[in-house]
């Protein structure tokens, strides 16, 4: 048995009574006080998440932009210094290696942040693509050098502002600033996140994680901030229909199927990895698309449950994620279905332990900020 990896915040999680689980080889809290409680705290005030398990890669050099444009589906040339961009990274056959965020720190310098469970696979893939041409840029795997804390929710900016002299108000969504927190700890302060709320993802040196975590808790608790585990992170993202690798994304799922056409720039001039396969897929027509479903009767849909037509006769798709939505008090799901079953209002059924339970296609995100 291999031992689980721990973030720099392990002792903090233990002290707070976090229930630790194995998440992709990392020992991380699934919850502290309860998923529902943490989820609602993030929607109402603020949630603090240890996401130090995420992977980081530095891409630096004169060809950094050209390399990332070849590696990723989005148009990296449109990203200004100080701006972030969400993208997919594909195999040649069009399936997804991962979804990720790039941060442009200088004209020739990027931070790439990938999913923890894909970290090593992604870096190997990036090196492979890098070796296809003589790109003048370096790749360095920096995951062990960063702690990443996400502070999310309507009061997140107010809380984080007490730790830094960098003005946060001017930072727009999907932009970032480089500054300091808690005195002299260097930090990337990025207005990004995975909850649907306003908020920041804060990148600091690995060993500084605990000090920043404690400072955020101290500043935030009087305002209602709560530490949040992976359980709330999942329900929050699901209420927004944000994809999660291994559910809505995978090596046999291409980004057009997964609703990521908005970050798949088939018209960008270079021949990025997967472009030919994606052009062919688009020409052939979409076979499936991701829809949001709400249950019309009792039952909670889960990943892998079969989706049937309204009559419950023919299987038309499969649930990729499902839960009881804490904000809506209603069971919801994301599922792959053929385009002809994807219009809002379409009635379908989901097989829950042998019973075909009625569901309806709804517009997403499920949760809309008031």
């Amino acid at each position, binding site marked *: 048995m291999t031992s689980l990896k721990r973030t720099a915040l392990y002792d903090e999680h233990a002290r707070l009574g976090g*229930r630790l689980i194995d998440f992709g080889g990392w020992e991380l809290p*699934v*919850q502290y006080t*309860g*998923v*529902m*409680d943490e989820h609602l705290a993030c929607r109402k005030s603020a949630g603090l998440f240890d996401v130090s398990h995420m992977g980081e890669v530095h891409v630096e050099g004169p060809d950094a932009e050209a390399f990332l444009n070849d590696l990723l589906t989005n148009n990296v040339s449109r990203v200004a210094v100080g701006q972030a961009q969400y993208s997919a990274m594909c195999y040649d056959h069009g399936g997804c290696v991962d979804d990720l965020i790039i941060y442009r720190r200088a004209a020739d310098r990027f931070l790439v942040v990938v999913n923890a469970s894909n970290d090593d696979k992604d870096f190997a893939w990036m090196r492979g693509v890098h070796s296809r041409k003589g790109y003048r840029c370096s790749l360095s795997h920096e995951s062990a050098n960063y702690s990443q804390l996400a502070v999310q929710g309507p009061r997140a900016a107010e809380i984080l502002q007490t730790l830094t002299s960098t003005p946060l108000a001017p930072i727009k969504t999907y932009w970032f600033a480089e500054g300091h927190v808690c005195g002299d700890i260097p930090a990337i302060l990025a207005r990004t996140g995975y909850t649907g709320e306003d908020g920041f993802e804060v990148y600091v040196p690995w060993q500084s994680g605990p000090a920043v975590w404690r400072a955020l808790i101290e500043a935030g608790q009087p305002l209602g901030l709560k530490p949040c585990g992976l*359980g709330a992170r*999942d*329900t929050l993202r699901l209420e927004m229909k944000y994809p999660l690798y291994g559910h809505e994304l995978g090596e046999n799922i291409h980004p057009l199927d997964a609703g990521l056409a908005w970050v798949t720039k088939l018209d960008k001039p270079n021949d990025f990895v997967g472009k030919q396969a994606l052009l062919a897929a688009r020409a052939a027509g979409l076979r499936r698309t991701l829809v949001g479903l709400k249950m019309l009767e*009792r*039952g*909670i849909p*889960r990943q892998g449950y079969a989706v049937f037509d309204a009559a419950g006769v023919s299987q038309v798709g499969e649930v990729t994620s499902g*839960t*009881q939505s*804490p904000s809506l008090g209603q*069971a919801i799901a994301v599922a792959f279905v053929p385009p002809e079953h994807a219009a809002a209002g379409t009635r379908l059924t989901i097989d829950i*332990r042998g019973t075909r339970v009625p569901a309806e296609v709804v517009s997403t995100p499920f949760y809309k900020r008031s």
Partner: protein
Amino acid sequence: MRFPAHLKYTKDHEWMNLQGKVATVGITDHAQSALGDIVYVDLPKVGRELKAGDTFGVVESIKAVSDLYAPAAGKVLEVNSALTADPAQINREPHAGAWMIKLELASEPAGLMDSAAYEAYCATLK
């Protein structure tokens, strides 16, 4: 964590309160705590005959689905259908108000733990 002394327990974390031939059944404080926020429960129909170890229902937390197992053989006499509308009651009062079914026992229950043995068993799961 509470382990009421008047109850008997299974390794699947059900409790049973035996009064004559009728056993009231629910899940333990340990079980509800491990599951987290319970948001769904499915219970059997009155009259269903269960063998010991049969699945009699399901509880779901936000994250997970768990089967409920009959601690002894018997016929379902009564079901706490109020739990369907308020599954979180199982988190609040697992040993009392959130009982799940009442069974008319078909035979003497076997292999159940008393509270001390169950508490010791839970300690081994940490």
